[in-house]
């Protein structure tokens, strides 16, 4: 479904990604793990078009992502839940969700999708008229995921969705990821919470200093000694 080939990317003179290749198949859940500053967020941004790579190719279901204008990339079916949520703080929850369904394709199904999201997060229904910026961290994370789901994407990019969330909610988030998968959605997820994420994804990549260091089935990764030592604190 999504395929990256030797992607280089960076900021100004600083290069953050070095020849990253990666693929995600339809219906799969794939994790990207790695230490702080490895370039995980950068990778997500490159995929969703927030920054353009310096070299390499990215295709989504055969379509060339790099040739698509950045605001049309959502229409390819890629939805990105950015790091730190990035809600519109002075819009209500409902307006935030509305923004998620901005694309003409999505507008037609707005009511349906809204029900879907409210089903998933009843808390959001309670707070639909609250300014997003005044909600707690966990509530905001729900809203951010909800917003991404509003566009009815095929591929969901999640950047550290569990950061700052209560343990039950972390579990819920991962449960959610499972459910979303079960609903046929493909997921690419970046996480610090390695132990948990490896339980929900099928495969994972290990990113270090901007390069893919390892990849494989999550069970293999879990078993890998070096990974265990470095990231699982065991």
């Amino acid at each position: 479904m999504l395929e990256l080939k030797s992607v280089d990317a960076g900021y100004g003179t600083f290069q953050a990604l070095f020849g990253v290749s990666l693929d995600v198949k339809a219906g799969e859940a794939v994790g990207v793990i790695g230490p702080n500053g490895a370039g995980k967020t950068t990778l997500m941004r490159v995929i969703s078009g927030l920054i353009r790579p310096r070299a390499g190719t990215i295709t989504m279901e055969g379509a060339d992502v790099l040739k698509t204008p950045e605001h049309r990339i959502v229409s390819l079916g890629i939805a990105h839940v950015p790091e730190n949520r990035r809600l519109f703080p002075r819009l209500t929850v409902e307006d935030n969700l509305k923004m998620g369904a901005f694309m003409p394709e999505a507008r037609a199904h707005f009511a349906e999708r809204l029900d879907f999201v409210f089903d998933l997060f009843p808390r959001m229904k309670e707070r639909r008229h609250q300014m997003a910026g005044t909600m707690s961290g966990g509530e905001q994370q729900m809203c951010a995921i909800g917003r991404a789901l509003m566009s009815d994407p095929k591929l969901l990019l999640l950047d550290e969705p569990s950061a700052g969330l209560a343990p039950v909610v972390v579990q819920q988030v991962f449960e959610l990821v499972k459910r979303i998968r079960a609903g046929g959605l493909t997921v690419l997820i970046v996480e610090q919470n390695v132990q948990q994420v490896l339980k929900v994804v099928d495969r994972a990549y290990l990113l270090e200093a901007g390069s893919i260091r390892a990849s494989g089935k999550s069970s293999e990764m879990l078993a890998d000694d070096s990974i265990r030592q470095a990231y699982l604190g065991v």
Partner: protein
Amino acid sequence: MLEVEGLVKRFGGFTAVNQVSFKVDRGEILGLIGPNGSGKSTIFNMLSGTFQPSAGSIKFAGAEISGLAPHRIINRGIGRTFQIPRPFHRLTMFENVALAGYFGQGKHSRVKAEEAAERALGMVGLPTDRTAAVDGLGAAGLKKLELAKALATGPKLLLADESLGGLDETEMDQAADMLRKIRDELGITIIWVEHIMGVLMRVVDRVMVLDHGEKISEGLPSEVSNDPRVIEVYLGTDADATQAAAAEARR
């Protein structure tokens, strides 16, 4: 050292913190946990003077402090970190901390401030050279800087809001050790808000649990992590927490 009675905070019609009372003893590390939106940061904001409480009293070292301006509270010895780090990008790292040393202690002595800055930076393991910029710091560095700023104000009580969020496992362990060291070596009392149970439960002496702005449980980590209500609203089936609590119980 800190006595909180019937603390309430309302936002419009919404009550974020409802009749919370608790005490913190000198030299203690109190863990403050609770689901997202349960009012933890709001309590911190009231303790540090950023928000005015809607009702209730806060006594620190015997004196009422609720309603004081933030800088006065800091000067009396309550330091805080922010959940999302808020460094001053226009100042160097050293200046960030020296600022806190200068104004936070209420002493307004430049020499003392710079000493305090060096000590605080050393404590958290950041470089003490004067030119290093903030912008080069990663997530972990920013959390450390946040902590160093709070330490430089010379607090007797430290409010640490999610010092671990966004860190990887090794960094988390380091940070937890650091909090312990701060308590042990500097004798600073700490209230710590955190969602990473595995680490928190290992470090704290006592835990208080909030839900919907109300205190629902309080006690030793082992007690709290076995409290069915806490498990229901917060911990879920968090294996780490249970493990850690078990370890604690053994000790």
